[in-house]
């Protein structure tokens, strides 16, 4: 067990830190309007391009398709240093750089790699994900969006759900049912859907915190060229799982470090408001802080495991279950500290918006696999308990 950096890691951190110190002050300020999705995505694309130009785009992507080919530990350092320096988030480039891109890298043809990967790394092309559906949430494989072949095209009909950045995306990684007569996992195909195709209707959904974070997407006779298929027809479930297999334990790093900053801000606020004298609040924050530290340690374990085995096993589920519980607890403490100041978001009684964060925390036990599904995964894959039925 070694937490101290190797010489390479130390050098990478130093170099990156220097570059960030030099680069960030010159960056345009982040757009302020929460609702202006285009301004937000333009900014994030600009940042992706800046990273690309400096050789920091796709830190975890294999070199063969344009990434830096770094170790998971260096990816962790990248995330840690960018977060600590207050750099912009990956934001709308998330699906491209972390899901669709790696999938195409692993399963796409040479033409597909050439066509799609550079645009992702340069921040030219935003991707969105068309996996979930109204009737296929936790049970993703029961998806109903259909596609039939018509000459050189698939014709797609159905409805997708929880599509982030659909408003600004150029491409969508789409799962469709191409064979309804076989077992549910066996009849699925993975397609690249250009978002300017005819027949796509995007309807933003207002989230609990008030923003249009995700959309419903209605697909009416959308025609997608067969050449946009990644992997074989009806082999899309496996292709999609390859994406999830790219999990290197770093998905929540920025989020976790951001939560540590949230705690620090709340501690300051509690000290200013006198709530720090309340041992219940003080000890509650101590516990939250200790849990975050342990989750940070666990993240390093996941990253080390990914470096050795290529993935973290159920480590992502374990992290998420621990983390969401901590965030729920933190949210309750924050509301106590805020008192009547908690009656509105955006009041800026301190640097962070603790009310919005408290509401946002509710999504952590739902999005990307509910807590119930994660517990099934841990109970069955790690503990070996039998599936129901």
């Amino acid at each position: 067990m070694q937490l101290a950096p190797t010489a390479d890691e130390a050098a990478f951190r130093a170099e990156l830190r220097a570059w960030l110190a030099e680069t960030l002050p010159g960056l345009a300020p982040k757009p302020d309007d929460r609702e202006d999705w285009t301004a937000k995505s333009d900014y994030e694309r600009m940042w992706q391009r800046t990273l690309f130009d400096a050789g920091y785009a796709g830190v975890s992507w294999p070199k063969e398709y344009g990434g830096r080919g770094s170790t998971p530990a260096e990816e962790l350092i990248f995330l840690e240093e960018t977060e600590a320096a207050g750099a912009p988030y990956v934001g709308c480039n998330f699906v491209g750089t972390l899901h669709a891109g790696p999938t195409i890298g692993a399963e796409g043809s040479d033409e597909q790699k050439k066509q799609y990967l550079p645009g992702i790394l340069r921040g030219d092309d935003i991707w969105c994900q068309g996996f979930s559906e109204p009737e296929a949430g936790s049970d993703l494989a029961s998806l109903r969006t259909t596609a039939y072949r018509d000459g050189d095209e698939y014709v797609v009909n159905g409805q997708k759900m929880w599509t982030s950045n659909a408003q600004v995306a150029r491409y969508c990684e789409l799962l469709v049912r191409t064979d309804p007569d076989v077992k549910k996992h066996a009849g699925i195909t993975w397609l690249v859907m250009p978002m300017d195709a005819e027949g796509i209707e995007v309807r933003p959904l207002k989230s609990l915190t008030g923003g249009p974070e995700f959309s419903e997407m209605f697909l009416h006779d959308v025609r997608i060229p067969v050449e946009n298929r990644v992997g074989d027809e009806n082999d899309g479930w496996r292709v999609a799982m390859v994406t999830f297999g790219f999990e290197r334990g770093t998905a929540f790093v920025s989020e976790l470090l951001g939560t540590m900053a949230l705690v620090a801000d709340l501690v300051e606020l509690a000290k200013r408001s006198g709530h720090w004298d309340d041992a219940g609040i003080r000890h509650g924050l101590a516990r939250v802080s200790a849990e975050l530290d342990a989750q940070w340690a666990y993240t390093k374990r996941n990253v080390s495991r990914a470096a050795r085995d290529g993935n973290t096993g159920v480590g992502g589920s374990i992290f998420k279950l621990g983390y969401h519980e901590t965030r729920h607890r933190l949210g309750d403490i924050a509301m106590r500290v805020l008192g009547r100041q908690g009656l509105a978001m955006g009041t800026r009684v301190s640097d962070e918006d603790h009310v919005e964060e408290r509401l946002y925390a509710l999504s952590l036990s739902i999005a990307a696999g509910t807590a119930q599904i994660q517990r099934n995964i841990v109970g069955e894959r790690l503990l070996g308990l039998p599936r129901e039925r």
Partner: protein
Amino acid sequence: MDFLLSDDQTALQSELRRFLTDRVDHDLRTAAAELPGAIDRVLWSELASLGVFGIHAAEDDGGVGLGLAEATVVFEELGRVAVPGPTISTCLAATLGVEGAADGTAVVGLIRADTLLVEHLDGLDTLLVHHDGLVETVAKPDGTLLPRPLDPLTPVSQVEAIPAGDEISKAGERVIQQGRLLAAAFQVGLGQAAVDLGTEYAGQRQQFNKVIGSFQAVKHLLADAVVGIDIARAGVHAAAVALDEAAASDGANDSGGRSMSVDAARLVASEAAQRACEACIQVHGGIGFTWELDAHLFLKRSLALDATFGTVHSSHDAVAATL
């Protein structure tokens, strides 16, 4: 002792529920959320005619003259549909004989003098302020409507200062205590609404070829939610009845053991409502995190009520002080 609802109380509850179920639905709540600060005056006067605001006001003041027990029954029903507007403070104002409160021609707010955040400011006809045991009327201060309230149905304005006012009552502590009690009743209603909504969804939604309510993970979440709400409701009723019976008999009756305090009832109701609302959101999955569904409104209202008439946190202190 008979701690079930009396026939009259059941009739009151049924009448109100029948009206509210039809009248205050998802569309009405959504519309109210999109007009923050506005009060639906038609609904307000309908509520008044059902006796909602005058329930605990003396008949001489145009009230119904019923007890706090009946008032908690009423406010649980209001909570079950998350009715918009400052219903609790208007009801409290009616008990003080504030002009127009009982008959629904006035919309009344009530805040502590030491806050600079005022709920529903734009829609208020009268603003009452509580400090040092007194209730005063004050001229409505100017305020800035905050763009992103915690609860879309509880618009909040920031004011520069609360002006000095005219005393109308020395019963400030009692009024605020009643406010906490009705807030707790409202929260029980919110929690019950969340349980109902979650249960309905869990009984229909299918995943993995099963109704999700058959999965223990879902079923037990909702079971724990309703356990909390059922017990909290009993607590709120007990606190109300204890105050009513103490008022009626100047405390001479020995109903045995200690009685439920308002702060204790509130503390339990707040916890239960939050748990139920979060369970409802969790059971719904992603859709629970959107405005398509009212689950978020139930949770947010409950959180907003935690900060009114003294915070829930201060109720912990109040209960501890009795131990």
